[in-house]
């Protein structure tokens, strides 16, 4: 039943690559933003908070269109990046990763922020009296204690990135082998007369990947929780 054609395999592998890159690149930023929002009070905090959550409430097409305006080849930012760093987003898989990363960001940040907020800062004080600088306190106390939230955020972000459709197709279109993810491929297949069986195969693959990600995240979260609460 799961006899995928080379084109379908390409879409599956591309989806995995885009989601993995989007999640991996977003994660350090996500942790930094979560820490800022959880711990610091600064001017414009609520604006930053709103900005991060915007992709969650905006129609994805709007986010995709905004990305097109900002990062298109002829857009100032897109032209600057292309001319100076050779980074091109428009109609490339990297652009799909950018769109997925931005769409997934609020889901990635939230659990991390919550887990950082739940950490007893007295433990961090204790670490500093033992000689740990702020950076070391973060690396050896804050980060390990936030690990369950980081795992949950990564998993949610990855799932969102994997399923992202609207912003991606608006920003980088639906080019087989370059920007055509599983979702876009399924959409395309539903638009042609004899695409049903192929669409169904991709749906099955999609379900398998999502379940595997869920099970893996659950397993990691359990291990992390066991580490935190003693054995």
């Amino acid at each position, binding site marked *: 039943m799961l006899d995928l054609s080379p084109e379908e395999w390409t879409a599956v592998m591309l989806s995995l690559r885009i989601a993995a890159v989007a999640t991996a690149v977003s994660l350090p930023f996500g942790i930094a933003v979560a820490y800022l929002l959880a711990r610091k009070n600064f001017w414009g905090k609520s604006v930053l908070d709103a900005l991060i959550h915007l992709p969650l409430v905006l129609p994805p097409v709007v986010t995709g269109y905004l990305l097109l305006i900002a990062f298109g080849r002829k857009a100032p930012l897109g032209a600057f990046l292309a001319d100076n760093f050779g980074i091109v987003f428009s109609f490339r898989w990297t652009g799909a990763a950018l769109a997925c990363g931005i769409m997934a960001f609020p889901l990635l940040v939230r659990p991390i922020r919550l887990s950082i907020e739940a950490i007893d800062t*007295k433990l961090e004080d204790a670490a500093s009296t*033992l000689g*740990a600088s702020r950076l070391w306190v973060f690396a050896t106390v804050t980060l390990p204690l936030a690990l369950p939230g980081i795992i949950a955020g990564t998993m949610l972000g990855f799932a969102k990135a994997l399923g992202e459709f609207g912003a991606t197709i608006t920003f980088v279109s639906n080019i087989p082998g370059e920007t055509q993810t599983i979702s876009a491929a399924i959409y395309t297949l539903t638009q042609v007369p004899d695409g049903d069986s192929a669409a169904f195969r991709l749906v099955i693959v999609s379900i398998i990947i999502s379940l595997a990600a869920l099970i893996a995240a659950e397993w990691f979260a359990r291990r992390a929780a066991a580490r935190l609460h003693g054995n």
Partner: protein
Amino acid sequence: MLSVRVEKALGDFTLDIAFTSAGGATVLFGPSGTGKTSIINMIAGLLRPDRGRIALDDDVLFDDAARIDVPAHKRRVGYVFQEGRLFPHLSVKSNLDYGRWIGGHAADPAAFTHVVDLLDIGALLDRRPGKLSGGERQRVAIGRALLARPRMLLLDEPLASLDAGRKAEILPYLERLRDGAEVPMIYVSHDASEVTRIASHVVRIDGGRVTATGGVELLS
């Protein structure tokens, strides 16, 4: 020698404290809510005084006039908290080793064994803090502070969360610590019976002021 002279506005009262501690165990004694914990937090660098000066021997830790405020992690002042505050994600052994490791010092098995024996915590090394009793937890917390090689040890009601039996279990270790003259101690307590055996010097504190200094007779 530790010398402390600090002022700090704390909610509804102002802390205005001056005392010195020449070694042994100095007990900051007084009712709850009189700012004793704030005083040792200021010595540790966890709370910033509004004004004053804190010096340990020739080393100025805080001086508002000279704009000196050494960050907590550079003060080398050990702190045993009321509730232990062991790192839940690390084993007892890693908790004990944390200060040495973070300071970048080579392992010193002799010092480690000495402290583990002194506090009788050898059987707990592979456990997680979550599985320790209150008394065990506090002994590990004392060991963790000692093994960071502090120049002085601050203890904030380290026995307050324990029942009478557990208190009696830990007191001998604290006496050993004092008599070994390993590090001078500042010991915060509101319970005279707990500190009578430990105190070599008493600073009585009430309402944010020092009301008397002297020996154990002040505890009665």
